[in-house]
C-alpha cells in the first residue's frame, strides 16, 4: 500500500526540499504550498480507498507484523489524515501572507512540514513505539515553530510548552516500555489480542495509567492543560492555527485509538476518570476563555473546552458517543483553525489582538464579520453549522447513557461558548474603534488578501458544507466508530486473517 508510505514521504520530502531551497524564498514558498497540496491529494485518495475497501495496512521494510513496523489506516486514521491535508494546505497558503520573511528564511516551512510529518505519522502508525517517535517529531518541530520568532514571550511559551510535554512523553515511553516488557510486542493490533490475555492486572492498570496521563497532557485535558494557554498565543498566527487544529487532536486521537484498541475506555476507573476529566475540561476551558481579553487567548482556552466534548464522547463509550467524538474532531479542526486565521486578519486590520484596543470591524469590513460568524457560531453550536451536529450527537449520547449531569454541563458550556464568542464580536466588530483615527483600519493589499482570505473562505465553506450536508460526514463517523468498537477488520488488515 504505497499510499500509506506516500502520506509520510510527501511531508518529509517537502521538509527537506524547503530546507534546501531556503535561499530562494519564492521557490521555497512554492514548494511548501505544493507539498501541502500533494499531501491533501494523497490523503484524499487514501480516504477514498479506505471508505471503499475498509482498513488498509503496509509493512515497513518488508518485515511482517508484528516484527517490523506497520502503517495502517482505518477510517478514523484516514479521516484524520484528510483533515490534516486540508489544514496543511490552508495554513501553507495563509503563511504566504502572514509569515515574517526572516522566519521563512530560518526554517518556518521546513518546521511546518516536519510537524505535518509527525502528525500524519501519528495518525497512520500501527505501532505503539513508532507512535512515540512521531510524538517526538511533533514536539520538536512545534518547539521550533514556537521559538522561531525569538521574542522573549515566545521563548517563555516555548519552554513551558516543551518542558511540560516532555513529562508526558516520558510517561508515554515508560508506558510503552512496561507494556512491551509484559507482552513482548509493540504492534497495536497485536496488543489488542495480548493485553486482555494478561493475567497481571497491575500491569494493565499501571500501563493504562501512564498512557492515559501521557495522552491527557497531549490533549490538554483538565488538570494538565497548563502548557496550552501558556504558549498558543505567542507564535505567528499561522503556527497558532496549525497547532490549534492538530496538536491536541493527535492527543485525542491517541486516547481514542489506545483506549478502544488496546484497552477500552469502558474499563472501571478509566471510564470514571475520563468522564470527570471531560466535564471539568469543558467547564474550566470555557471559563478560562471567558476570562480572557485577547483574541488568541480566548480561542486557545476554547480548544481545551472543546477537547472536553470529544473526550466525553470517548468516555461515554457507547456507539453513538464515539460517533459524536469523531464528528466533533473533524468539525473542530476546521473551525478552530479558521478562527485563528480570522483572528490574524483582525490583527492585520486593526493592529492588535487585544480586544480593548480594537473595534469597528462590522462597519469597516462586514465581509470579515460574516467570515468570523461562520466558524464562531459553529463553535458555539448554532445550527445548522457543523458544531451543532457535533454537540447534538454528544449530548444525545450523554442523555441516552443517562449521564444527565454531563449533558447539562455540555449544554451550559455551550452557552458560555456563545458568551465568549460574543465577546469577540461585541468588542472587535461592533464596538467603534477606540482610536477613531484608525477606525477605517488599513486594508489588505492584493496578494496578501488572496493568501489570507482564500483559506478562510475555504474552511468556512467546509464548515457550512458539514452543517448542511451532514449525512455523509455522519455516515463516515458512524463507520469509523464501528471499526473502533469492533477492530477485527483493523486487526486482520495488520496481522492477516487468523484462526
Amino acid at each position, binding site marked *: 500500500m504505497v499510499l500509506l508510505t506516500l502520506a509520510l514521504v510527501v511531508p518529509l520530502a517537502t521538509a527537506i526540499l524547503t530546507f534546501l531551497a531556503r535561499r530562494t524564498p519564492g521557490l521555497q514558498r512554492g514548494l511548501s504550498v505544493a507539498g501541502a497540496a500533494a499531501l491533501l491529494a494523497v490523503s484524499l485518495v487514501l480516504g477514498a480507498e479506505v471508505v471503499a475497501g475498509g482498513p488498509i495496512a503496509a509493512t*515497513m*521494510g518488508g*518485515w511482517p507484523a508484528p*516484527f517490523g*513496523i506497520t502503517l495502517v489506516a482505518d477510517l478514523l486514521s484516514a479521516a484524520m489524515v484528510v483533515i490534516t491535508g486540508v489544514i496543511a494546505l490552508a495554513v501553507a497558503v495563509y503563511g504566504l501572507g502572514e509569515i515574517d520573511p526572516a522566519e521563512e528564511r*530560518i*526554517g518556518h516551512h*521546513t518546521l511546518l512540514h*516536519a510537524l505535518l*510529518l509527525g502528525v500524519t*505519522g501519528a495518525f497512520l502508525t500501527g505501532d505503539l513505539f*513508532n507512535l512515540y*517517535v512521531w510524538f*517526538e*517529531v511533533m514536539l520538536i*518541530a512545534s*518547539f521550533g515553530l514556537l*521559538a*522561531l520568532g*525569538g521574542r522573549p514571550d515566545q521563548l517563555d511559551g516555548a*519552554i*513551558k510548552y516543551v*518542558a511540560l510535554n516532555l*513529562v508526558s512523553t516520558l510517561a508515554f515511553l*515508560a508506558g510503552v516500555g*512496561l507494556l512491551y*516488557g*509484559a507482552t*513482548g*510486542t509493540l504492534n497495536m493490533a497485536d496488543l489488542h489480542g*495480548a493485553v486482555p490475555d494478561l493475567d497481571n492486572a*497491575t500491569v494493565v*492498570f*499501571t500501563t493504562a495509567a*501512564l498512557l492515559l*496521563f501521557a495522552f*491527557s497532557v497531549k490533549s490538554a485535558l483538565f488538570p*494538565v492543560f*497548563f*502548557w496550552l*494557554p501558556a504558549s498558543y498565543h505567542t507564535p505567528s498566527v499561522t503556527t497558532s492555527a496549525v497547532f490549534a487544529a492538530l496538536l491536541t487532536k493527535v492527543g485525542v486521537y491517541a486516547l481514542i485509538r489506545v483506549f478502544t484498541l488496546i484497552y477500552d475506555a469502558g474499563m*472501571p476507573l478509566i471510564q470514571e476518570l475520563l468522564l470527570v476529566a471531560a466535564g471539568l475540561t469543558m467547564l474550566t476551558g470555557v471559563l*478560562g476563555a*471567558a476570562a480572557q481579553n485577547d483574541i488568541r487567548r480566548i480561542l486557545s482556552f476554547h480548544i481545551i473546552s472543546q477537547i472536553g466534548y470529544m473526550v466525553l464522547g470517548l468516555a461515554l463509550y457507547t456507539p453513538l458517543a464515539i460517533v459524536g467524538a469523531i464528528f466533533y474532531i473533524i468539525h473542530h479542526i476546521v473551525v478552530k483553525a479558521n478562527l485563528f486565521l480570522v483572528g490574524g486578519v483582525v490583527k492585520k486590520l486593526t493592529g492588535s489582538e487585544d480586544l480593548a484596543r480594537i473595534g469597528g470591524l462590522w462597519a469597516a469590513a462586514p465581509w470579515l464579520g460574516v467570515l468570523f460568524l461562520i466558524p464562531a457560531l459553529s463553535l458555539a453550536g*448554532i*445550527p*445548522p453549522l457543523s458544531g451543532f*451536529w457535533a454537540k*447534538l450527537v454528544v449530548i*444525545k449520547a450523554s*442523555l441516552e447513557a443517562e449521564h444527565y449531569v454531563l449533558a*447539562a454541563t455540555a449544554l*451550559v458550556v455551550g*452557552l458560555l461558548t*456563545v*458568551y465568549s464568542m*460574543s465577546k469577540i464580536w461585541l468588542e472587535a466588530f461592533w*464596538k467603534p474603534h477606540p482610536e477613531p483615527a484608525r477606525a477605517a483600519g488599513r486594508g489588505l493589499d492584493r496578494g496578501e488578501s488572496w493568501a489570507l482570505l482564500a483559506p478562510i473562505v475555504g474552511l468556512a465553506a467546509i464548515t457550512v458544507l458539514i452543517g448542511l450536508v451532514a*449525512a455523509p460526514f*455522519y455516515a463516515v463517523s458512524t463507520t469509523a466508530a464501528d471499526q473502533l468498537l469492533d477492530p477485527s477488520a483493523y486487526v486482520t488488515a495488520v496481522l492477516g486473517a487468523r484462526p
Partner: protein
Amino acid sequence: MAVVTAPVAAAADAAPTGRPLARYGPALGSATACAGFAALIPTIADYSSIRVAWPWISGLGVELSFLIDGLALIFALLITGIGALVLAYSASYFKGHHKLVRLLVLLVLFELSMLGLVLADNLILMFVFWELTTVTSFLLVGFDHEKADARNKALQALLVTAAGGLALLAGILLIGAVAGTLEASALPAAAAALKADPLYPAILVLVLLGAFTKSAQFPFHFWLPNAMAAPTPVSAYLHSATMVKAGVYLLARLTPALGGTGPWLWTLTIVGGVTAVLASIWALRQTDLKLTLAYTTVMALGTLTMFLGGASAIALAAAVTFLIVHAFYKAALFLAVGILDKKAGSREIDQLGGLARPMWRTWVVVALAALSMAGFPPFLGFIGKELKYEGALAVASEPLLVVTFAVAANAMMVAVAGLVAIKPFLGPRTATAAKAGEPPFAMWLGPAVLATGGLVFGIAPELVGAALVNPTASVMIGDRVAKDFKLWHGVNIPLMLSILTFVLGVVIYLALGRIRRGLAAGEAHGLWAAESGYDGVLAGTKALAAWQTRVIQTGRQTQYFLWTTTVLAALLWAGLAMGGFAVMPRGVEAISLIELTMLALAAFGAVATVVTRSRLLAILALGLLGSAVAAIFVFYGAIDVAMTQLLVETLIVVIVAVALLRLPRLTPAPGLEVRWGHLGVALATGVATALALTAVLGTELDRRITDFFEQASATEAFGRNIVNVILVDFRALDTLGEIAVVVVAALGAVALLTRRREHREASR
C-alpha cells in the same frame, strides 16, 4: 416550496443600488409569499394539512420535513404579511441610510428563519430555525452597535434566549428518546407514553424554559423591553408580531403531546397570568411609548401562555384569536410610534401633544388600532376579548383565577390604549406639534393595513374564525372544533365582564399620573428587579472565570510541573490500587554484591543530579547514573545495549559540558531549601513507577519477537549486532523519525541562535 423561496430571490435583488424597485423588492417578495400561503387557506379550512419531507440525517432521526396545518398557516400568514408591510416600511424609514441593505438582508434572513420555525415538522429542524431567529434577532437588536447600550441589550437577548434554546434542545432530545419520533405530527400518537414517562417532568421543565425565555415570560421577560434598543420596525416585527411568539407557537405545537396534565396547566396558567398582570402594571409605568408597547407585548404573551394552559377548546380558540388580534394592533401601533419618533421627533408621552391636526392620517390609524387593543366592538379585539372571557370561564379547574388575571390585564390594556391614542393627539399642544408632518406613503401603509384589518375582521369574524382559528384549535385539541364567531352574543357573563373591564380601564386611565408616580417610587425602592438576576449571574460567571483562571493558569512553571507530576503520580497509584501491589519479582534474592554496588552508584548519581547546585556536577552525576545502568546491562549479557548506552552517556556528558562552559554561572542560593511537597510528589512518582516495573518483571516475557530478531538478524538482515539491525532495518522507520527529530532540533537551535544575534544587532 416556491412560496418559501420567493423572499430569498427578492432579497438577492435588493442590490445596494437604492433604486425603489430594489428597496421594495423584499417587501414584494414577502407579499407574494403571503399570497401563496393565503391560497392554501381553503385547504386548511377544510381541516386538512400538507406535509412534505426529504431525508437529511436519517441516522439521527432528522428530516427536512415541513407541515402546513392551521397553526403553521396562521403564523406563516402573519410572518409573511406583516413581513411585507414592515419591509416596505423599513425601506422608507431607512431611506438613504448606509446600512439599509444590511438591515433588509437581516430582516429577510429573520423572516425565512421564522417561517422555517413554524413550518418545520421535525423538532430538530424546528430547533435549527429557532436558533437562527435568536442569532438574527441578536444582530438586529444590535443594529445601532456603535452604542454600548445596544450592544449590551443585544447580548442580553442573545444569552437569555440561547440559554432557553439549549434547554429546549435537551427537551427535544428527551422527547425523541421517549416518543421514538421527532416529527411533531407524529407526537400526538405518543402523547400517552410521553405523559406517563418518568422523564415527563424533566421534558416539561426543559421545553417550558425554552418557550418562556423566547416568549419573555416572567421572570425572563426583561430582555424584551430591553430589546427595544433595536430600530422600531425591527421591534414591531421581531419583538411584537413574530419572534417572541415562537415560544407561544411551541407551546401550541406541543399541546397535544405534552398538554392537559396538571403540571402543564398550573405552570402555564400561573406563569402566564403573573406575567400578564405584572407586565400591564409595568406598561403603565413607562413614559416612552415604545417601552409602553413593549410591556403590553409581554402582557399579551402572558395572556397567550395562560390560555394555552387551559385544555378546553374555547380557551385555545381564544388564544388563537387573540394571537391574531394582537399581531394586527400591536404591529400597527409600533410602526405608528416609529412614525411619531421620525415625524414628531419624540416617543416620550410627555413631549407629545396636539398632533391630531398635523398628523391626522396617522391619528386615524392609531385610533383604529387602539380601539381594537381596548377591545371595543366592532373590532376583532372585541371578539378576542369576549372569547377570552368565555375561555377563562371554561377553564375547568380555576376559572376565577384566570378570569381575574384576564380582567385585570385587559383593564390596564384599555388604559394603555387610551394613553397611546388620546394623549399625543388630543393632549395640549407641545413643541413637537409645530414641526410634525405626515409620513411617506410606504411608512403609513403598513400600520394602516394592519389597523384596518382589525376592523374588517371584526365585522366579518368568520373570515378568520372558521378559516383559521377552528382548524388551529382542532390541531391542538386533537378533535374537530367548530366554534361560531359572532360580534353579538347577547347579554351574557363575558359581556358583563367586558363592561367591567371598560369601567376599570377608564378609572385607571384617569388615575394614570398618580399610578405612575407610585410605581416610580416603588422602583426606586428596588422593586421589580428580575433583571438583577441576569446581571448577578453574568457578573458571578465573570468573577468565577477570572478567579479560576488566576488559580489554574498562574504563569509559574514550577507550579505547572508540580500539578502535572502530581496527576501522574496519582494515576499511577490509582492503577496500582486497581491492579493490586505486585510481590517482588523472581530472582531478587540472587542479586550479587557488584550489582548492588552499581545500583547504589546509580542511586547516588540520581540524588546528586537533583541536589547539586552546579550544572557541571549535575551532568557528571547524570553520566554516572547512566554508566551504572550500562554496567548492569553488561552483567545480564546485553553487551550491545550496554555499548550503545555508554556511548550515548559519554557523548551527552561531553557535549553538555562543553555547552555549559559557555553558560553563565548559577548564583548559588543561600542554604538548601527543601520543598517537601515536591519531594513527596517525586518520591510518589518514582516509587509507583518502580512498583509498576516489578509487576512487569513478575510476568513471563513473551519472546516471540525477540526470538525472531535473534534468528533473522544475521540470516535475513545480514547484521550481527542486533541493536544495530533493529535500528537500521527492523524498525528503521523509528530511526528515520528520530533522525528527523535530531535534524529539526538542530534547525531549531540554529534558528534560535540566529534570531538572538538578529535581535541583539537590532537593539544595538
